[in-house]
């Protein structure tokens, strides 16, 4: 009997030692037992022929996580005076952008860049106009404590959520226990944002062979996709962005240094991220500082400020005949075909709160 006990003891010791990954031989504690059960994985559906949607391993999308993220996205609880939510500046029928040139924070302060649209954000690498953050999760950490935006320190935000009658159970369902942290708040918001999928515009239907362009749209599509219009290099289908940074000659002297403030590389002065053009016709203002209407934004490529800092892709246009008014009209018409009515009216992306 003693021998059997000794044998079992040796085996147990060896088993633990064999499977431990720790250099010091300490045994890792077992994972905590979930209080609320595991959340239900949610597969984000993308039509065939479109890029596979990247989802970070550390934040798999779940039904409960998306539900929680939606509540948070639309809840003013995350602003200092409980008057503003993410959705205050990212409005669904504007492709989750803002109609105002610069959004106002709770104190009335205005930023100096436009609240960008959120369309197919799962494919976005570096976010913000200058790409200073590298994931949706990281992006969501920024507006809440920003004094010019929602102006609520994260510890206070967490305390509010902990004291809410709703949220502890929602975090429990989404993450397996009711602990509330900034990390979990932003993960949930990012999960919700990954469901902002827009692949049912006229462009998509034409691509699938179930619709056709008007003659003007077809002409615009050709210009968009050849070197004459040359939109495709920075706004490549099917996402209509390449998520790359460009100085498009907006100013003769750089006003906003853009990407330079992130990299410190003088070659990045005045560069901003090429935004997705999906649903652009549902928006009112364009460029990082909202200086243009949609048509003006297209016209700009006839009238940019030239200089050594300007992207060669733009500069080469100087030697070519400008686009005609009719060509600009047709490109704008084609851009209208990138609107996805289902996206801006999708009830699953709308506020979960009663009006």
């Amino acid at each position, binding site marked *: 009997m003693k021998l059997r006990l000794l044998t079992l003891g*040796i085996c147990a010791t060896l088993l633990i030692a064999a499977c431990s990954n720790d250099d010091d031989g300490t045994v890792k504690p077992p994972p905590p037992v979930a209080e609320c059960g595991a959340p239900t994985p949610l597969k984000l559906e993308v039509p065939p022929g479109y890029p596979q949607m990247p989802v970070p391993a550390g934040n798999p999308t779940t039904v409960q996580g998306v539900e929680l993220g939606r509540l948070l996205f639309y809840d003013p609880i995350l602003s200092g005076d409980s008057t503003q939510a993410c959705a205050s500046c990212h409005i669904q029928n504007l492709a989750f952008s803002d109609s105002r040139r610069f959004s106002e924070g709770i104190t009335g302060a205005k930023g100096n860049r436009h609240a960008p649209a959120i369309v197919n954000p799962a494919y976005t690498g570096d976010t913000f106009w200058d790409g200073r953050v590298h994931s949706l999760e990281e992006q969501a950490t920024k507006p809440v404590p920003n004094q010019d935006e929602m102006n609520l320190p994260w510890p206070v935000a967490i305390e509010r959520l902990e004291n809410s009658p709703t949220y502890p159970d929602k975090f429990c369902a989404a993450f397996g226990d009711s602990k509330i942290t900034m990390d979990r708040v932003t993960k949930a918001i990012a999960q919700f944002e990954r469901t902002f999928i827009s692949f049912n515009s006229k462009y998509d239907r034409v691509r699938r062979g179930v619709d056709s362009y008007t003659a003007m749209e077809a002409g615009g599509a*050709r210009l968009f996709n050849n070197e004459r219009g040359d939109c495709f290099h920075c706004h490549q289908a099917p996402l209509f962005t390449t998520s790359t940074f460009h100085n498009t000659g907006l100013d003769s002297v750089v006003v906003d240094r853009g990407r330079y403030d992130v990299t410190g590389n003088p070659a990045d002065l005045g560069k901003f991220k090429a935004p997705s053009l999906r649903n652009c016709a549902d928006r009112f203002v364009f460029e990082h500082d909202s200086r243009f209407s949609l048509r003006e934004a297209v016209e700009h490529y006839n009238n940019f400020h030239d200089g050594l800092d300007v992207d060669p892709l733009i500069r080469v246009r100087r030697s070519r005949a400008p686009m005609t008014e009719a060509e600009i009209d047709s490109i704008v018409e084609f851009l209208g075909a990138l609107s996805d009515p289902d996206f801006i009216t999708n009830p699953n992306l709308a506020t979960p709160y009663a009006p």
Partner: protein
Amino acid sequence: MSSIRVLLTALCLCVLVALGCSDDPATPPGEDTTWTADVLFGFTVNGTPLALNLMDYSTPAGTKYSVKTLRFVISDLRLHSDDGKSVLLKSVHYYDVSDLATQTIHVTKLPHANYVSVSFRWGLSTANNARDSHPEIPLIMVWPTELGADLGYHYMQLEGNYEKDPVTHETGGYTTHTGPLHLNGDPVYDFSFPVSASFTPAHVHEGGHGELDINIDLNGWYTDHSPGDPVDTQYDFKTLGDQMIMGNIDAQTKLQTNGPGCFSATLTALGGHDH
């Protein structure tokens, strides 16, 4: 007897589990018969190391220029040994001079041999170049549908500024973009091409590490490497630099003809055991 059998069985089980749980089943030191390598890319202009954004270079046609952007795709990257065999290093590789993550190819378990050259295809062959066929290549490299329905990807995007007028120093942009072409009614023009670069035979010892440096002299794209040949392939920015060359068969042909003259390579052994 029964107790001893239990003890032995349990010990065997533990040994098996211990082996099964090991994170690193590597061959014991000194017995590794393979080697590892890093493939690196270097750039020169007329033999001078490339510095981005400086208007310091001149084409053979005498036009000053700078380089701001360099992205390219290569495929079927192989090392060749003196016994006629080759080993695949990578099927498709995308490089961006502004993205560190794309700038080194790390290869493991290379067989021991005496290596003499490297080869690859510049770009992607038509059979290997279809839209969405290589999701690791970013969207900015996608070839536009209007120049060949869903042909796939650019081979190269080399961009910068050039001096249009040496008196006024007026500058403009150039975009040397290469890729396949399929214009209405025409066959598919495959402008990708094979590259082979020999180097001083190198032998990386077992368990060792080597560095394969592939150099691209960017002026080579604009240089007629066979000036005696009746076909002039000199590429002049003043006529082609800022023009729409992606759909220009003549420009693409010049670049395809000049391109193979851009490449050289070295393989350097950095350590290991010699048995």
